[in-house]
């Protein structure tokens, strides 16, 4: 057993670790560059243009924010599928506060964030208390949240109006440069919490090995709840930015809201697969941008959006899932 490490000394270990780290990072960056060159080539260089890149950046910001939220919610093992429906509700509450109550940006952001935090806290608390598997609970709550949104929508239509719309107001939050500032600030905050606080390390300990975490004096339940509040804050911000970007977010039914979180889900899984190379909070942005780019290319190639692109989306989720699980051994159900 283990007579391998006997001769190693300080500097050797350090250098070895540092050089492999450098090598894999360079390799990853090279891979991304190659992917972008290939993507540009197949689109006859329509892809790597300034305006197109800006368009990709703009549409990758909401998914990136959602991935940041997922990092804090999913890491503890609570895979909450109702987040999509929850974000639709949050967008609409934000819209109502902004327009109907005349609270402007303040109302939009506070409404979205508070709604997201409140609903996510409710979800996580109920999952912890009832011990129902998170995925089935998320499916049930998706139906509930979708129904609430649809009931509101139906009531609005009965009154002769449509669901809440921002019109031309309050659209700066979703457009450059404000949205870029938002994402930069959020990445910094997420990075700090995930890598520099007791909560971040507690969450990662619980996610990696909750038995040891518990023995080391970490309050598992409290950590999971606190982390989900942080995650929900990012989801709420994502809802506000999305509302501002789109002007209107229509409620969906029939689980369609789950497809809202598909790009972020794929990006999250991809970021998890590469967390040895990029810190997962940085990886969130890179992966969201990467996936948005791929869908942008599909559009440029004339692949119909909504149909075949969704097929690619499904494939992307499965492939990212396989990548993120490849280190994992044990029972999978």
């Amino acid at each position, binding site marked *: 057993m*283990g007579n391998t*490490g006997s001769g190693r*000394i*300080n500097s050797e270990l350090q250098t070895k670790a540092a050089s492999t780290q450098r090598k894999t990072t360079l390799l990853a960056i090279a891979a991304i560059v190659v992917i972008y060159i290939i993507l540009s080539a197949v689109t006859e260089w329509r892809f790597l243009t300034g305006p197109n890149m800006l368009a990709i950046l703009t549409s990758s910001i909401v998914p990136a924010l959602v991935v940041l939220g997922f990092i804090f919610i999913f890491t503890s093992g609570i895979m909450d599928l109702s987040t999509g429906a929850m974000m639709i509700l949050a967008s609409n509450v934000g819209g109502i506060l902004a327009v109907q109550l005349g609270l402007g940006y303040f109302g939009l952001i506070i409404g979205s964030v508070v709604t997201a935090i409140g609903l996510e806290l409710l979800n996580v608390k109920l999952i912890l208390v009832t011990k129902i598997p998170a995925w089935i609970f998320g499916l049930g709550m998706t139906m509930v949240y979708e129904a609430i949104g649809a009931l509101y929508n139906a009531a609005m239509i009965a009154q002769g109006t449509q669901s809440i719309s921002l019109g031309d107001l309050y659209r700066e939050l979703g457009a450059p440069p404000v949205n870029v500032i938002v994402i930069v600030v959020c990445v910094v905050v997420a990075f700090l919490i995930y890598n520099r606080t007791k909560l971040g390390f507690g969450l*990662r300990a619980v996610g990696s*090995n909750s038995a040891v975490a518990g023995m080391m*004096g970490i309050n598992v339940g409290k950590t999971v709840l606190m982390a989900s509040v942080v995650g929900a804050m990012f989801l709420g911000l994502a809802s506000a930015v999305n509302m501002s970007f789109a002007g209107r977010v229509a409620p969906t039914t029939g689980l369609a809201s789950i497809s809202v979180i598909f790009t972020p889900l794929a990006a999250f899984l991809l970021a998890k697969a590469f967390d*040895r190379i990029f810190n997962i909070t940085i990886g969130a942005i890179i992966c969201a941008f990467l996936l948005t780019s791929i869908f942008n290319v599909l559009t440029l190639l004339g692949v119909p959006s909504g149909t075949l692109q969704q097929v690619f989306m499904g494939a992307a989720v499965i492939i990212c899932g396989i990548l993120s699980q490849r280190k994992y051994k044990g029972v999978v159900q």
Partner: protein
Amino acid sequence: MNGAEKTIFRAEHMKKYFGATHANDDVSITLEAGEVRGLIGENGSGKSTLISMIAGLAPKDSGEMTMNGAAYLPENPIDAGDHKIGTVVQELGLVDGLPIGVNIFLGRTQRFEKGGVLDMKALYKAAAEQFEKWNFPVFPVQSMTGSLSVEEKKIVELIRALSIGPDLLILDEITQALSLNYRDILFEVIKKFRNDGKTVLMVTHDVEEMIEVTDSITIMRDGKIVGTCRCDEVSPDDVKRMMVGRDLEGAYYRSDQKESFEDEVVLSVKGLTSDAFEGISFDLHRGEILGFCGLSGAGIHELAETLFAVRPSQAGTIRLTQTGAVVKSPRQAMLEKMGYVPKDRDKQALMVNDSIEDNVCLAAVDMTEGKLGFLSPKRRREVSKRVVQKFEVKTKGIAQVISGLSGGNRQKVNLGRWMIQDKEVLILDCPTRGVDVGVKSYIYRSMLEAKKQGVAMIVVSDELPELIGMADTLMVMKAGKLAAVMKRSEVFTEEKIIEVML
């Protein structure tokens, strides 16, 4: 020991039960300042249980503990650390998904906080300083713990325990995992503890090493402390005798002292190799009981799993000589009349939340399957009832859920479901683990009966007396290799076997 003796830690009348077994039965131990104490005993003697209670990993059932003169009742290892007790134990691992430095201070990161944000530079610096302070090479404290080897992880655990500045350091079987260089550094650490008037309690299987390193040795057996002796007064043989010194009342073992089996070989294993052992070859004969023993890490349990193809092998063959079939999968092994009782009854063998019937028929599925794959409910009930009756399982009926049965009755179901089938080879891994004496003797009788009918058995066990009492041939393994093969007629004694094992 330096001069005036001062008690640093005291445990009195400690008791701990796991179901019906007394893991610790009225254990009292006192540790002085500046003392290095060894704790030794066979597997299951209760030493790990005692350490778990001191380290705050398991609550005691009764008893009193004092640390530095104050009453001591740890909630978790962090609490134990606050009382200046640092522990390195197998149960308390590291979190793979965190950097090494964070693992060292996990649960105690408050002191690095600056306005809610951790000062990582300071944390990593403090972690690196701990390595330096105890003369270990400094690990890359910012790297993920998951990338370390088993040995390196042990060192990190040791540093974590040392970083609290303990007055009492508990080391549970750490030297086995360490190479010589690291071992020497560890012994220096222990010396420093002694010189500073601090205390070390260490567990190891290596008696010679223990006598060399420690001042005195406490020996445990069957959940009790059988004695404490000063190292300058004992020889390794004395200690071994005290460890073993159990009365081998042979009443429930077989009485003959000669191996007895037919010449026909039923199972032939050639050069079997996996990540846990290498080059294992043997022939198993009809009606033979073949025992395997070895210390933890010797690879005996992994061997049992590989023989039934649950665990992959890297080289070698397992051939059933009658049909010439080579075992490739568990299912095929079953069809070739092999049976397997795994070591961990509740995690590997039985579905504890399911009925006796479902559990019996899982192993005996081929007895209940008819035409068109029909699993006849009637036949299923018959087979289950036969197991319950033949093996005297105490239950209200075959619909009883397993978790409602006692350990002994569970084991009867576990063994019985294989023994009622006409199997030719049975692999039994720790067949009497966690059952009381009555059931034990019952299981031995059943094994001898099966032997008489020509069933060949491979028995892997951590309990030497049972192998000595039952086996025709005994294979002793050490560090993944066959170290010795003994015949019953040569008279096995525990001293002889332990000599080879250690």
